[in-house]
């Protein structure tokens, strides 16, 4: 059991239960008292909480590398998955381009962006809508459901499986592996490595199938295998790492956003009514919910000694990219603690900022919008069954994990 935190400005603990459940007062305190804080916990890290600092650090890729983006240190960074004669023999966090710096990042990102463009993502909207509708129809008559594990959690994993050309029955397994890697594995290196091994091994088998009979497939794996870099096919290790990224980054994150949005709406009838009366407000509302309940905290590694805001950061130090705290900085956002569905000025950085802007942001937005639309269409009036019993995950990705909601049936 970790020691309870006495002074958050010197000893923050992003895995403390109180922080995971309610991080907002901590951010408010740190932002004013110690805007770039330090802790020795979890391998040690720096943590900026003001918008301007997050903006600057995210864009300074020369001093702040993405080679290790996990918020707790479990293993030194290595260069991605290694494929030997016996298959995948090294299971690490190499997941280009999120873990790449330029120059690899530049081509790796160009490879990944087109299948996640607004136009490409729109093709997945009908499938997403059908899925959301069938999920709600499945529990509508019960008058209660777990909005997290029974709804939000299922949507992104099924969509990602479809995009990768993997049977939807695998979605449940994916969710378990990804949680093992990102959520439970955040503080449990053995579980993390074991989960990574399962994901890499499974994906590598699918990649081999694609290599053996390419004519049978038309999905993201085929697209990656069929792409070239400097005239050569993209190395298979790279394809594997990118598939790993797509899977790991595309599940917990969006699921958390959908869950948090439902958590908010369950407690704010005025916002529900407004979204139903003014459906055209939805895209703006999604941005506002992303701002207020940003799920993702990333990390950077200091590439060479640098003094930032008076803090002596040494090569190898970890910096936690607290984008969620930045998005509640009153220096940038009026009444940041309030959800204002038609907020006019909202340059939120929930998807990061700079060259590592989330490649899946268009997909995440589409899934959130469709998930909320289909839910509200069928369940316009709902509330949390027991607000105190909602459980949250936090650390790297924050969102509700158990959230019983009820409605008049």
């Amino acid at each position, binding site marked *: 059991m970790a020691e309870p935190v006495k002074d958050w400005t010197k000893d923050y603990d992003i895995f403390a239960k109180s922080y995971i459940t309610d991080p907002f007062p901590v951010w408010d305190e740190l932002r004013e008292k110690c805007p770039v804080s330090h802790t020795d916990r979890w391998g040690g890290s720096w943590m900026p909480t003001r918008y301007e600092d997050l903006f600057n650090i995210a864009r300074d890729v020369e001093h702040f590398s993405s080679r290790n983006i996990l918020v707790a240190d479990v293993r030194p960074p290595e260069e991605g998955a290694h494929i030997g004669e016996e298959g995948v023999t090294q299971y690490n966090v190499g997941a280009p381009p999120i873990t790449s710096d330029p120059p690899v990042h530049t081509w790796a990102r160009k490879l990944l*962006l*087109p299948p996640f*463009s607004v136009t490409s993502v729109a093709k997945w909207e009908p499938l997403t809508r059908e899925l959301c509708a069938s999920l709600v129809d499945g529990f509508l008559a019960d008058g209660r459901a777990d909005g997290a594990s029974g709804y939000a959690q299922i949507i992104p994993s099924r969509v990602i499986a479809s995009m990768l050309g993997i049977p939807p029955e695998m979605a449940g397994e994916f969710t378990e592996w990804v949680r093992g890697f990102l959520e439970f594995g955040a503080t449990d290196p053995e579980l993390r490595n074991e989960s990574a091994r399962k994901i890499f091994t499974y994906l590598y088998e699918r990649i081999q199938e694609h290599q053996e009979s390419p004519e049978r497939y038309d999905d993201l794996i085929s697209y990656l295998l069929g792409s070239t870099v400097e005239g050569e096919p993209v190395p298979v290790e790279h394809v594997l790492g990118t598939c790993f990224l797509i899977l790991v980054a595309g599940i917990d994150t969006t699921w958390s956003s959908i869950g948090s949005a439902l958590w908010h709406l369950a407690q704010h009838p005025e916002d529900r009514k407004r979204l139903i009366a003014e459906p055209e407000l939805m895209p703006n509302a999604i941005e506002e919910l992303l701002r207020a309940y940003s799920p993702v905290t990333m990390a950077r590694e200091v590439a060479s000694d640098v003094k930032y805001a008076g803090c002596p950061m040494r090569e190898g130090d970890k910096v936690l990219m607290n984008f969620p705290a930045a998005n509640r900085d009153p220096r940038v956002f009026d009444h940041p603690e309030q959800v204002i569905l038609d907020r006019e*000025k909202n340059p*939120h950085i929930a998807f990061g*900022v*700079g*060259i590592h*802007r989330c490649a899946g*942001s268009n997909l995440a937005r589409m899934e959130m919008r469709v998930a909320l639309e289909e839910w509200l269409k069928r369940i316009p009036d709902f509330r949390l069954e027991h607000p105190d019993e909602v459980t949250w995950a936090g650390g790297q990705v924050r969102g509700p994990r158990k959230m019983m909601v009820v409605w008049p049936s």
Partner: protein
Amino acid sequence: MKVKVDSEKCQGHNRCYALAPGMFQVDEYGYATPQGDGKLTPDTLPLAQKAVANCPERAIEIDEDDD
């Protein structure tokens, strides 16, 4: 008066594209450029201002001197 996108700063968030329909176009990577010559009228200026206020990369500007 024209709206401009700094291509060095734009990272393809697509916020301007969503907020100001018809004012910007995005390529397959999400990188935005103004539609046509980017010329603004008193009617379209507020939308351009909204795009400026919501761009996380601070990549959009309104050039009042460019006709």
